[in-house]
Structures are given as structure tokens and as C-alpha cells.
């Protein structure tokens, strides 16, 4: 990643134009040609510096439900349990964390009423209790990362 890539990542984390030639317009603001910007973005995606280029949707406002869950899994059983949990399509993210509660995953469903059923199935399939920590309130301020 060079300075120009950094400028692109920093400048384009929002506000991509909604018009016929958005890359041309965004490129103009950066002092670039349309094709150069497109090629740079392609490379940033290929190198996985960007995970995506496009609209960032708010899944809850689309009608989906997110729910955080935590489990305490003995280290010797961790790989088996992780495989079972990850197998569920409703599990959107799963992180190992350094804590007694060492497995933290997020359930994402289009139908919020299905969350409880999925949690029971995960508990039954793994043999461990699942702590359910749904959000009661979110304080959202957009994070802009600096490249």
C-alpha cells in the first residue's frame, strides 16, 4: 500500500457518489483518472486491504436481528465446539477471547423470533450453556479508520 492507496482508503470510507459515473467523480476529487481509481480499488480488494467496496448496510434496519452470545468452553474441547457453532448459518461472527467466557459469537437472523430457538439448538449440540446478551441500546458513532 503506497501513499495514494492510503489517500484512497481514507477519502472513500463514505460519500461515494450516486451518479452515472461515480468513479470518475471520486477520482476527480483525488486528482486521479477514473481507470486508475478503479484499478487501485481492485488491487486493494485483491490484497484484502478492503473487505468490500460498496454500500455498508445496517442489518438491523433491514429487518435483521443481531444477538451476542458467549460460552465458556474447556480448552481441550474448544476445537470441537467451534466447529459445531460455526456450522450454524445464523452464526455471523465467532471470536475466541482471552477470558473464562472464551467463545463469543454473533447470531444474525432475518427473523428475530428465531434467535431463541437457534440458541437452544447450539446449547444442545455442544453440551454447554449459552449466555445470551442481546443489545438493549446501541450508541452508534461511525468509526473511520486511518490507513
Amino acid at each position, binding site marked *: 500500500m503506497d501513499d495514494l492507496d492510503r489517500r484512497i482508503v481514507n477519502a472513500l470510507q463514505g*460519500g461515494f457518489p450516486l451518479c452515472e459515473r461515480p468513479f470518475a467523480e471520486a477520482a476527480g476529487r483525488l486528482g486521479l483518472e477514473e481507470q486508475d481509481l478503479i484499478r487501485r480499488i481492485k488491487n486493494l480488494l485483491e490484497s484484502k486491504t478492503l473487505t468490500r467496496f*460498496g454500500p455498508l448496510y445496517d442489518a438491523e434496519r433491514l429487518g435483521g436481528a443481531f444477538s451476542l452470545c458467549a460460552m465458556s468452553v474447556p480448552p481441550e474441547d474448544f476445537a470441537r465446539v467451534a466447529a459445531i457453532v460455526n456450522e450454524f448459518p445464523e452464526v455471523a461472527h465467532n471470536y475466541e477471547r482471552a477470558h473464562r467466557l472464551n467463545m463469543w459469537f454473533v447470531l444474525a437472523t432475518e427473523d428475530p423470533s428465531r434467535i431463541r430457538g437457534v440458541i437452544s439448538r447450539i446449547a444442545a449440540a455442544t453440551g454447554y450453556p449459552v449466555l445470551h446478551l442481546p443489545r438493549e441500546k446501541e450508541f452508534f458513532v461511525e468509526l473511520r479508520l486511518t490507513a
Partner: protein
Amino acid sequence: MNAFDRALVQATQGGLPLVPRPYEAIARELGVPEQDVLDGLRRMLADGRIRRIGAVPNHYALGYTANAMSVWDVEDEAAESLGQAVGALPFVSHCYLRPRRLPEWPYNLFAMVHAKDRAETVGKIHEIEALLGERARRHDVLYSTRILKKTGLRIA
């Protein structure tokens, strides 16, 4: 969500086509005029279903590798205003109130902190600690040690 918006989400949730006229390419795929795609995206941006349009960086690739989940046990009466204050800190990406699950889980305020190394994270946690003062009875910091899965919600 109506059928068109849903189709638009499906067509764009993985990213925009990297061509000079991306919205026209999507319109062709959906069999609608380009203007409908532009209007639909504008509408979803205005009502918050789209948070923003542009580059979605990979935290780890940008060097933000010391990401921590800080959790705080704060007085219920002050939880809303404290959450607001913590959420407004520039290094906090997400801030939530969640239920306590006693006895195993005494924390009700969650703040995700992003930093480039462990020392920077520790400094930022201290800033939150100073901000909350005595209204936080206790806290803990959970570092992620491994990503086991990361896909996100997909609208089928």
C-alpha cells in the same frame, strides 16, 4: 422492505461492480432503469438502511490488530448518558448496553476499542476509565485471540 429494495440489497451487499457505470450495470442485472437504482440507494441512505457507501477496510490489514472488547458495570440510572459519552469517543467503534447475567456476567456497558498495539489499547481503556470515574463499579477487557468465523448477515 419491498421486493425491489430487497433485490437491490442482494445485488449490492457483496460490493459494487468495478466498472465506470456501476449503477447502470446493477440496473441491467435487475432489469430496471438506472434511475431506479440510484433512487433506491439514495432512499436507503437517507433512512439509515445504508450507513455509507464506499471502501470498507479490513481492520487487520490497516494494522488495527489490538482490538479489545471493554466491558463495564455502570449504574443503571446513568447507563444511557454514559453509553452516549463512551460511544462518542473517536476510538470506540461500537458501544452497547446489554443485560447483566448474574452471577457469571456483571457488566452492562460494552465498548469496542480499536488500536494498533496493546499499549495503545491500554491507554484508551484508561481514558474510558477516567471518563466513567466512580460510576463504573468494575470493568474487564477481553482481547480477541482468534477469529473463528466472519461472514456477516446475508440477505438470502
